[in-house]
């Protein structure tokens, strides 16, 4: 990543300036022009270095306090098909395959469900299990009890020596 890209991301991650011309404000801090900052921001999005730009709600503060990580042990040869179907449920916000760590951790599929209550999360999981015929596979929901940190992924000031 070049120097200007890095400096722009470092400024952006402190928050988009809440002024009428935020990109001009950033340009002033970078010693660049508004046009260049607009161009570079578009490029960072196009390259996928920035996944999205905008607001990240604090779902806890907004009352969406039931955060259920549903975990499933499904056969490896079916996991892609099952994962894609799970991810299509509107209640599921993230869905990933991750490795098992036997014997302590038998699960290979993770699907996050956020809701207003634990009952809702549990009901959703059981409904999905029935609809996708997953009831025969071991699964459970692991609820969060405390949000301890949520800063989002941040770029560091300097690259650590590798």
């Amino acid at each position, binding site marked *: *990543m070049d120097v200007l890209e890095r400096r722009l991301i470092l400024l*952006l*991650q*402190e*928050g*988009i300036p*809440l002024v*009428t*011309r935020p*990109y001009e404000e950033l340009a002033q801090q970078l010693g660049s022009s*508004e046009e260049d900052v*607009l161009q570079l*921001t*578009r490029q960072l999005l196009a*390259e*996928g270095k920035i*996944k999205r*730009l*905008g*607001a*990240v*709600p*604090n779902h806890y*503060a*907004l*009352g*969406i306090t039931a955060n259920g*990580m549903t975990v499933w042990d499904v056969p490896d040869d079916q996991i*892609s098909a099952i*994962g894609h179907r*799970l*991810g299509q449920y*509107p209640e*599921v*916000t*993230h*869905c990933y*395959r*991750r*490795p098992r*760590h036997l014997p*302590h*951790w038998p699960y290979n599929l*993770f699907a996050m469900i956020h809701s*207003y209550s634990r009952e809702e999360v549990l009901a959703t999981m059981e409904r999905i299990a029935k609809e996708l015929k997953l009831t025969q596979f071991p699964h459970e929901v*692991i*609820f*969060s009890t*405390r*949000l*301890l*940190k*949520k*800063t*989002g*992924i*941040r770029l560091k000031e300097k*690259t*650590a020596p*590798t």
Partner: protein
Amino acid sequence: MKHQVNSAPKLEEGDKIILNHIQGGFPITSRPFKEIGEKLGMSETEVIERIKNLCLSGALSRFGPVLNPRRMGGNSTLAAMSVSPDRLEQVIALVNSYPEVSHNYERQHRFNLWFVVSAESEAEIKRVLAEIEAKSSFAVMNLPMMEEYFVGVNFQFEVE
């Protein structure tokens, strides 16, 4: 319209309308708040003031970019630990002290600490996990993503 939410405390109708429209796709134009305002029938000033208040009230965790470390030559992973209750607060402080840790949750399970580690190289991730393990003397289970089926956090607030 991914996640339908029925009610949300402490939010005015105008706040909900804004929230529903700014969780991505923030305009990359000279006057982005004016553009949002025109779409939502609000003035540029109202949009800016409402977003300011949403940040101040804690309704927003952030207003900026969601980064993808994998596109910057880096990576991220989910890690879990099973920590005894008497050591938990100490280990939480240790884990949270790393800038590479972006999210950390206590969960109701034998594995009671779950956190995300991101860095610009795989080596840095390994170093952070190894350090946490050595300093805490609890094992760290590394659960890197092998395949992504869906990511689309977008909370929609019902407007009356």
